[in-house]
């Protein structure tokens, strides 16, 4: 449907302006906001205590962790790769932090920094191997997931660090205004930094370029190898942050907090970015989408639990949601392509 204006060459701004607003209403982010509002209203009306201060607090705290896990995966998806080892790396970082505090006696701020540096080192191992061997990151991180987790379990004898300084659990329990968890603020700050990285900095643009077309990026003088390694290191740090937030929530560093091999993190890790419209082929990223996607997922699981659907069925719903989300996204894309909007 061409509007009569578009035939007039004198007003090139008209159709463009119209296009960008339509574009926003057709965007993933808008769809996610709509879904979040709709489900919040449904749960608020049907589930007892869904909008209570306490539930909003736990919801914020849980989504802080899930969003961080999603961001950790997102930084690698940007390059067109995957990081199956997010969970294993996260737990390794948390256990390193616990060991630095309890085993070595390092003060906790230093221990956190040291543990995050360890996360970056694990990411560097992944990145360097992907780059050196030229193999797909799927198989490399599948192997390192097994190695990292096995080494962590072996070294810790599968025992938790429970004597952590009270700063951790205080931070985890802290509330602003009765319902806002500082963990959520940490996550939002990280998300803002990432958005700034991808939009405004050279390194961020190079990451996107390396993901969109490695060969073209290489020819334009980008050192693709270094950029990919950097993305994996960033992923390691973010996975470590997510795990440390879990430590703050639990008050202990527990080896099983991400399940066997860290597999329990895989679904949330992919749900956020995929719902948020980050392309699995790489080269396109939406930090806001990832945040909204991960928040929607957390809200849905919390709401379903409160509706007493049965804790055991929640996983099925999350899987179905991932399926519906990718299908909707597919439909949206082909609609946009037909209308020549994208």
């Amino acid at each position, binding site marked *: 449907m061409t509007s009569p204006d578009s035939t007039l060459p004198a007003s090139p701004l008209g159709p463009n302006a119209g296009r960008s607003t339509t574009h926003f209403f057709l965007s993933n982010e808008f769809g996610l906001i709509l879904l979040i509002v709709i489900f919040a209203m449904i749960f608020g009306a049907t589930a007892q205590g869904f909008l209570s201060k306490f539930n909003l607090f736990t919801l914020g705290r849980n989504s802080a962790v899930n969003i961080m896990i999603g961001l950790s995966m997102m930084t690698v998806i940007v390059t067109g790769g*995957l990081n199956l080892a997010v969970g294993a790396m996260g737990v390794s970082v948390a256990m390193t932090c616990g060991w630095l505090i309890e085993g070595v006696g390092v003060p906790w701020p230093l221990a956190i920094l040291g543990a995050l540096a360890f996360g970056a080192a694990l990411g560097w191992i992944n990145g360097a*191997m992907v780059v050196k*061997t*030229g*193999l*797909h990151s*799927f*198989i*490399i991180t*599948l*192997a*390192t*997931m*097994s*190695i*990292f*987790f*096995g*080494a962590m*379990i*072996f070294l810790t*004898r*599968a025992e938790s660090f429970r004597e952590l300084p009270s700063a951790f659990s205080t931070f985890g329990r802290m509330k602003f205004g009765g319902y806002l968890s500082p963990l959520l603020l940490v996550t939002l700050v990280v998300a803002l930094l990432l958005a700034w990285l991808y939009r405004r900095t050279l390194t961020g643009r190079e990451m996107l370029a390396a993901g969109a077309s490695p060969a073209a990026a290489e020819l334009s003088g980008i050192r693709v190898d270094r950029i990919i390694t950097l993305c994996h290191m960033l992923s390691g740090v973010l996975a470590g942050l997510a795990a440390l937030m879990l430590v703050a929530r639990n008050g202990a560093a527990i080896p099983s907090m991400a399940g*066997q*091999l860290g*597999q329990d993190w*895989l*679904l949330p890790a*992919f749900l956020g970015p*995929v719902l948020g419209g980050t392309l*699995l082929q790489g080269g396109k990223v939406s930090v806001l989408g990832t945040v909204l996607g991960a928040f929607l997922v957390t809200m849905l699981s919390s709401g379903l639990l409160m509706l007493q659907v*049965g804790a*055991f*069925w*929640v*996983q*099925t*719903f*999350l*899987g*179905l949601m*991932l*399926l519906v989300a*990718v*299908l909707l996204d*597919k439909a949206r894309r082909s609609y946009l392509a037909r209308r020549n909007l994208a």
Partner: protein
Amino acid sequence: MTQISRLSRTDWFGPLLATIIAIVVIRAFSANFLSSFNIQILLLAIAVNALVAYSQMIIIAIGQMNLSVGAIGGLAAISFVGMIEVWGIPAPLAVILALAIGVGCGVINGVLIRITGISAFVITLATLSIFKGINLGITEAQPFYGVPDSVKAFGSALVFGPIPWLVVPTVLVAVGLWFMLSRMPVGRFILAVGSNEHAAGLSGISVGATVIIAHGISGLLAAIAGVLVVARLQIGQPSIGDDWLILSFAAPVIGGAILAGGHVSVSATFLGVVIVAIITQALVLFNIDPFLVQVVLGALILAAVGLNKLRARAPIGQGT
């Protein structure tokens, strides 16, 4: 010399050599290793793990991946015992229904991948969660105990010497798969789609049907593995299949499978399973921490893909 260089390029030669060396070395350090009891334990592990590996291998053959292998196996396993316990269905019928559920799950994967054109990774990640969720929803994480005596007897019976009956289905599947992949049109179609989907489509192969069949077979094999685990454990655990993911990729990759598709080997994958089983067993025999098994598995995958990469780069020999 040409004989050796030709041998060294087959998929099974390297793994076979590694298997023999591992057996000889471990036997030298531990006299118990080749005791009949130990061989029986090894064979039991191999019987199930080989099916898990084949279930993934058939999907690697079409150049995709199936993260839901363990979830399908677990769902088939608990529905097998569940149907017997709750509905009182006779065991043979329950086996057939459980395998049908496995095929159904696989076909769902295949159809979704085909219709939507979305990567197999995302689809099978979603179905992994769905199948596992159904498993937990049905069982509420409690095991089914009602495994009938006939199934228990099958799980512990020996054909002769140290060879358990559980090995028989695996051997039949391996022979069947080998025959299918090397002699039957559908097997050749699967490999053709894996090496070049576009070219396969242009040559008149129905790519969609081939993909769906491969996923159906994958589901079937995962379900057989799940039922065999029930027979071995004599209990319907909801956690069956949780730890299959790494193993399912390790064995085919050790066996020289190319993850991009089009090239897999039934015999070499089997040897991959044997190597993993032997090494796991050796860690136990030498009182090495069982936690290290995960590290060794990961390292094996890395070593195998590294070697495959080198082998692919080596000049194509003169012998052929």
